[in-house]
């Protein structure tokens, strides 16, 4: 394992340990931001989350410098993180010199703070965008594809941390979550049987069809399963479309 790899593994191990041990969400996100700086070789990072009013707010940053905080906070009105939140996709600018049309106030403030490039990664949980992980660089240029993949992974870890916090505050929810997971499994087994009988296939093949349908329609598998069992989906819908070239 290279030194860089080991650093990455250490960072992920550290973050995951925090999730399962004593857990405080703000500390966790602060640590995540700090690790992002070294792992991704950027200058500053921050996490913005959407609040109950639908506006982005600062929850954590890699440093307390004014320039960093300012850049994060003014994104309530405009900026890469706001765009990222709206689109649900990464928003990248490798040269803020060119962004005075896209983000007039943000680009000016960023340049004044000595930053030249910015990357915003969405923090997504299923179809909900919780906010964004922001990466600011003093150097212009984009991050490599590998670095961006790692950055998205860290954004995903941040999302897990936030949902986790909600679970810990209501520990009975964890128990209930397990029960609900088990019941979802029962539903899935029922759906396999129903589909297997309708289509005259094995339950194993039924399982494959159900999973593929869920993936193709971007619907949770347990929703599809309930619909198959209660009859609100016709079994024929789950059949794969025949290959016209076959």
């Amino acid at each position, binding site marked *: 394992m290279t030194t860089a790899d080991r650093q990455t593994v250490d960072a992920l191990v550290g973050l995951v340990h925090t999730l399962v041990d004593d857990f405080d969400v703000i500390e966790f996100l602060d640590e995540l931001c700090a690790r992002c700086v070294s792992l991704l070789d950027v200058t500053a990072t921050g996490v913005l989350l959407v609040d109950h009013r639908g506006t982005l707010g600062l929850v954590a940053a890699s440093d307390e410098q004014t320039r960093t905080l300012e850049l994060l906070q003014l994104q309530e009105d405009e900026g890469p993180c706001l765009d990222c939140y709206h689109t649900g996709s990464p928003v990248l600018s490798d040269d803020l010199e060119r962004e005075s049309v896209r983000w007039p106030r943000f680009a000016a403030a960023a340049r004044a703070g000595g930053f030249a490039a910015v990357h915003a990664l969405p923090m997504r949980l299923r179809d909900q965008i919780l906010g964004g992980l922001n990466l600011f660089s003093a150097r212009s240029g984009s991050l490599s594809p590998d670095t961006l993949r790692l950055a998205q992974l860290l954004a995903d870890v941040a999302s897990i941390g936030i949902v986790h916090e909600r679970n810990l505050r209501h*520990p*009975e929810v*964890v*128990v*209930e979550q397990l*029960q*609900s997971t*088990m*019941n979802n*499994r*029962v*539903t*899935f*087994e*029922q*759906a*396999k*049987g*129903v*589909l*297997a*009988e*309708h289509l005259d296939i094995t*339950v194993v093949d039924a399982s494959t069809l159900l999973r593929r349908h869920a993936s193709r329609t971007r619907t949770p598998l347990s929703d599809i*399963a*309930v619909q198959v*069992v*209660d009859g609100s989906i016709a079994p024929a819908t789950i059949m794969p479309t025949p290959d016209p070239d076959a």
Partner: protein
Amino acid sequence: MDIDRVREAWSAVRTLAEHDNATMSARHACMACERAVSADGVGLSLSRGSTLSEPVHATGVAADVEELQFSIGEGPCLDALAERAPVLVTDLADGENGRRWPAFAPAAVRYGVRSAFSFPLLMGAIRVGVLDLYRLRPQPLTKDEVADVLVYADVAMLLAMRSAQSAQTERHDIVGTALDERRAEVHQASGMVSVQLGITVDNALARLRAYAYASDLRLIDVARDVVARRLRFAPDEMGDTSSTSGDPDKEQT
């Protein structure tokens, strides 16, 4: 599932039934659950989809509050069914809950009830009913108590479904039977039989259980035969059901 917790729950239910000189029923599961979490009332109702259909058991203050939910059509019980998830209310007198259930919450509080915990009884996609627990003083359930209630809810559901079909003498290894019913093949077979007979999946499970009992077979073995298509169920001309199979040596019921 925590096996000790399951065994203890069944043991508590059996003890109550023995006191009554009766076979175990959903009513005993309710009573045992109420004791296990020191609740001040418990109610169990069956449901059809997302609506309550039939009260099975409710004593004392629970009887009044369950009746409220039936007649008003609002309350944690109905939300638990709709959401297919427990609804745990520490204090019905709190403003937020008053807004959530504007008719039910104040009425329940007038009956003296402050905490309400509703657990839907689910068998996969089927909503069998809901188990409600009440407290006269606002106090949330602990994590352990929630785990206990989930086990008792399962027991209550099994017993409620059995008595809905027919009175059967219980097998000696009731826990083993209950565990058998958790096997994937049993639910797959229920799905298949539901299509074969044109009935709901929970009724299909009941048919499988009845067939296993009548044939002195284990439910899991019957299920495997169904999944492997060695055993099929079909309605006969009279509208009754009988089982057929590809194996001429298998007995017809």
